[in-house]
């Protein structure tokens, strides 16, 4: 058990560290690279937790495709002004850290409060063990978790609509007026 726990804690620490660096780095490209490292670490945590398929998909989709596109687009733009805007002032960086801490706090409290609802003690890696093959994952997704799966799809649609709305604002997210 200890042999599996040590890599898990090392990887978790790395995930938290690089996620923190993603938020606080002054340079957007460094942010994107840190986020990519976070994704890769997350994939390897999944490998360690007996869910190799999810880990592999995490690598292919997020680290391999989405983040490469992000990095590419960021490199295409000349972000010299962004660099200054990102690192300006103690107050704004304090706000950034505080808001991320606030969100992390919400997450932690949510997990702590929902441990009674989730049946954690009896079968803590139940889903992971069941979902080792792609057939099992497909069956789980389209039987047991079909509602959550569809709601996630709806959420993605919302994000797409939101992105279109943001791009319609003249000047983008950094409009002065």
């Amino acid at each position, binding site marked *: 058990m200890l042999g599996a726990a040590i890599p898990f804690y090392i990887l978790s620490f790395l995930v938290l560290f690089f996620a923190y660096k993603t938020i606080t780095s002054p340079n957007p490209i460094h942010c994107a690279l840190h986020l990519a490292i976070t994704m890769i670490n997350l994939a390897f945590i999944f490998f360690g937790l007996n869910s190799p*398929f999810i880990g592999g998909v995490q690598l292919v989709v997020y680290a391999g495709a989405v983040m490469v596109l992000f990095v*590419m687009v960021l*490199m295409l733009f000349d972000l010299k002004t962004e660099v200054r805007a990102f690192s300006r002032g103690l107050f704004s960086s304090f706000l950034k850290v505080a808001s991320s801490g606030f969100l992390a706090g919400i997450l932690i409290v949510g997990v702590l409060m929902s441990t009674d609802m989730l049946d954690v003690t009896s079968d803590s890696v139940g889903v992971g063990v069941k979902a080792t093959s792609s057939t099992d994952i497909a069956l789980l997704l389209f039987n047991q978790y079909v509602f959550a799966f569809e709601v996630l799809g709806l959420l993605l649609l919302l994000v797409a609509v939101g992105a279109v709305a943001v791009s319609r604002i003249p000047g983008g997210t950094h409009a002065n007026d």
Partner: protein
Amino acid sequence: MGVDLFEITVNLVKMIFIFVMMVNAVPLLVWVERRGSAFIQNRYGPNRVGPLGLVQLLADAVKFIFKEEFVPGKGHRLVFYLAPVVALIPGALAFAAIPLSMPIELGEFSQIPLGLFTIDLGETYGPYRFAFQGYEIGIGIVFVLGVSSLAAYALLMAGWGSANKYSLYGALRASAQTISYELALGLSLVGILLLFNTFNFKEIVEIQSQALTFSFLGSQMTVPYLPNWGIIYQPVGAIIFFAAMFAETNRLPFDLPEAEAELVAGYHTEYGGIKMNMFYIGEYGHMLVASALMVTFYFGGYTLYPFFTPETVNQFWSETMGLTGNPVALLSSLSLHLVFMVKLVIFLWVFIHVRWTLPRFRYDQLMDLGWKTMLPWALANTILTAVVILIMRAAWS
């Protein structure tokens, strides 16, 4: 990792051995590439240093290590230094996950016979099962695809960290090309997944080590003397996969990222010495992975049905040669490894031959080929395979 010290040691040595194997294949491949290109273009190639110019590689390595290293003035130091290291990782990780031969199943043993004398170990070890690969992962295909899709980062980091417009152009082209062709690559593999019903390399190879067997309208058909290879079921998928793999390795005819006529040398313009050599190792590592995947998916992996399958090789070493116990397991695994290596070398030669035969694409031709030709064909191949498998495997009675 293993239950006792012996198993853990062997597993660690195996991982290091496979990495060293990949790195050491590079100078040999460079030599083959230079001599091969000379052969194709009717020249001599390197033939002065050592027999057939083989020691040229050693001289090159020494030169690479002792060259002056520098960072461009406005470059990003950390990113610039990290990029060559990152370039090594995808190839190494992916190559270690591909089975190079069948697993070695060792029984219990207490001494190691070494020809004239034997080493007595004192206690009994075993039984063990050593996979002939760096590490076994159940979902081999997804892992290899995921890891090799990380190769784009090395190019992007190199291009951006150099603070050079040519480098950045090369990096952008490279990542756009990688992302475009990854779609066709992934889709062309779906046919193989549907056919063999597994993500595991070992199982795929085991299915391919029999005679050609398929279900035809519900009844089982067997064609003797023909291997059950993927290429027989998926010729279109194989062609698309091979072409997409060329694009992933950034070699001619897809080497726009380093098109020297337009971009000096693309993303590694600013690199010299051992750092540029590391990009080369990454590229050749990708080539090795591509050839190994091609062999594993479409050409029977480490087996060659009528002659070299796990059963026939075992039979040869135990019955014809009269051996028993652990030497049989070791020798049959090694013989199948040789079969794999021969196939691998054939595909590596195809890679080299294509590089020195075809001209480079124009950028719009590259994108047209990726999005308008290969992607629709791969999609059609997937749908057709699914429909045919559904009809053929249904219970018609």
